[in-house]
């Protein structure tokens, strides 16, 4: 359950959707929506005794709510989820600029022990103001990071790769791994859907080559540069047949995602809400279980079969890609039934960089394992052939 606590943000990052879109309804989630969330959560968990609920506090900048709102959320959870709270897990994605010891206290009580963030030190990309003031942003981020570490929290960071990044991939790689030597760094491509900011956009090929460049730095010292995604997961998948994938590549988001907007409307995910797709109704009107059974999800549930008989037929990388994120597919083709353009990035990275460097040959074709589902892939379903 992605909880968009607020659409407001104290930063003006160039590539962020929040910055560019027009917001309908309230900007910040009122307390009655938060309370309803926990009532619905308890209801759902009582109906499904084997399920767990991951609540991801998101935004905008979720810390703009202030520590009091999260303290209230905790109170709502205690009040409404007395017997089910053990199956509710909280996490948060923040720019850290407002993180204080007060937040640390309440997050600790919510069971949060690791803070998710994103960062880019490159000038002119992130920060308040127009153009973004990177100096202020960097200072605030590092100050927030200081508090995170002093308070004993772990943290993970997403780095969004833009056209600016491509100029010095090696410097950027070392910067991030120096900042976070214990790992927890994830590289992702910038997603630009509209006309702006086109100058930041990168092609799938450029992203693949960026990954390839830093992969060559990472591979000889993979023990030193721990926890760098997507390399760690890809290698683990390749060697162990395990299947650790992000939501966009899992092919399993049909039955597992909700996005709660500040106005209480629930859709599939953040982008589906922004684009008016897959709206499941108001949390005040429908239960989570009911929304999970919503017929609109069928098109997502059928996507795997459609792709394996269509765009992705015979693809040896199917099980680690699943045709990419359905929303990316919709953005590019107007349909959920096609693979995304980022398929090219995956293929290029694997064929041009990963396999030649590692000597491994990936084989994750559909014949090797079940379609969709939530079972982990065993060694029989993902075969790795070492190239001679």
């Amino acid at each position, binding site marked *: 359950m992605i909880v968009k606590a607020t659409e407001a943000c104290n930063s003006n990052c160039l590539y962020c959707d929040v910055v560019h879109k027009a917001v309908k309804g309230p900007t910040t989630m009122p307390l009655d929506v938060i309370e309803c969330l926990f009532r619905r959560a308890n209801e759902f968990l009582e109906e499904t005794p084997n399920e767990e609920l991951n609540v991801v506090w998101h935004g905008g900048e979720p810390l703009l709510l202030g520590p009091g709102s999260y303290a209230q959320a905790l109170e709502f959870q205690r009040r409404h989820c007395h017997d089910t709270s053990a199956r509710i897990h909280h996490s948060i994605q923040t720019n850290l600029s407002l993180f204080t010891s007060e937040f640390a206290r309440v997050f600790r009580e919510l069971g949060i022990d690791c803070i998710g963030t994103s960062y880019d*030190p*490159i000038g002119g990309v992130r920060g308040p103001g127009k153009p973004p003031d990177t100096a202020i942003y960097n200072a605030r981020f590092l100050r927030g990071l*200081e508090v995170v570490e002093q308070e004993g929290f772990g943290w993970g960071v997403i780095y969004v790769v833009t056209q600016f990044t491509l100029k010095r991939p090696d*410097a950027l790689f070392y910067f991030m791994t120096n900042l976070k*030597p214990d790992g927890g760094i994830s590289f992702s491509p910038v997603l630009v859907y509209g006309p702006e900011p086109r100058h930041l956009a990168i092609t799938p090929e450029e992203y693949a080559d960026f990954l390839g460049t830093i992969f060559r730095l990472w591979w000889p010292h993979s023990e*030193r540069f721990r926890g760098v995604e997507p390399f760690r997961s890809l290698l683990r998948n390749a060697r162990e047949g395990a299947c650790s994938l992000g939501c966009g590549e899992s092919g399993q988001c049909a039955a597992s995602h909700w996005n709660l907007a500040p106005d209480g409307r629930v859709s599939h995910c953040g982008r589906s809400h922004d684009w008016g797709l897959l709206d499941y109704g108001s949390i005040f009107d429908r239960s989570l279980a009911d929304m999970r059974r919503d017929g609109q999800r069928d098109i997502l549930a059928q996507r795997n079969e459609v792709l394996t008989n269509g765009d992705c037929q015979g693809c040896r990388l199917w099980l680690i890609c699943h045709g990419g994120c359905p929303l990316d597919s919709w953005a590019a083709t107007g349909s959920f039934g096609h693979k995304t353009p980022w398929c090219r990035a995956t293929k290029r990275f694997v064929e041009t960089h990963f396999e030649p460097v590692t000597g491994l040959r990936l084989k994750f074709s559909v014949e090797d394992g079940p379609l969709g589902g939530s079972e982990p892939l065993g060694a029989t379903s993902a075969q790795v052939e070492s190239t001679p």
Partner: protein
Amino acid sequence: MVFPILVFRDSQKVLDRLHGHRVVVRVDDPENIVDAASRVQRTGNQLSCVICDSVRPLSAITPAESWAGIPVALFVPEVGRLRDLTATIHRTRDLDVHVYLPAARPENLVSLRILASLNVPSCATFGAEPPDWEALADLMTYALLGPIPHVPIDPFEYIADHYAPDRWTQWDAVTFSDPRRYLHLDAESRVALSHDDLLAGAFIADDLGALDDIERHPAFVERAGRWRRFFAECTQCSCCPGWRVCQGMFVHTVERAPGCSAFFTELMDVVEQHNAKRRQTRQPNRWRP
């Protein structure tokens, strides 16, 4: 919290104010080493080592038998000629002496290798002038991957001992400069975070009584947080593969002597290789900084 070890110039006045502390005393003349050590013991404090800051080369210093049992850190500008050293080196070897040499002098990089191969522990020190980075890399490789196990050459051995791939390696303790382990007192018992700070008059407290938890002291926090400037400004150092060990230590010389990056990058490779195949060898029981 384990209280840091106190470093100060040999002074009865300072010692009289201390009780039960671990201390390092500094002397200028090797002749004063024994007396300095005795003074510490008489005042109920625990001697960690004696630092001798000598202007004479090692070959001009005759270690005394009375140094036995006293850990000595001998800071000298150079070793001198080996022919003048051989008369006393066996005694230096048998005593608990660590020789510190400035790495900026090219002949000292050879001397460090000689000393280690003659079983005298030594340490390269760094100052305002950068060393010959390539020669230092050769020395480092010899220290960590040499075919015959010799006694440590610091800071390489220290770095290898404390290195972990998932964090930055702090190694300033090897030259008594880590404020988490060493605090420096002047003759009035004013407290500084390092010897350089002490010489510059940058005190953080007027006496030890004013200090509770050093790691929460604002000056310490500020010192510990200096790295943030490098990252906030996205400097050359913050993007350097060698950062995890260097942490910007040579930022002031990187422009005119940029070899530090290659050196520290290679150092990590060698340390990882060394640690991977470290053999369990029995080493003499010597103090370590």
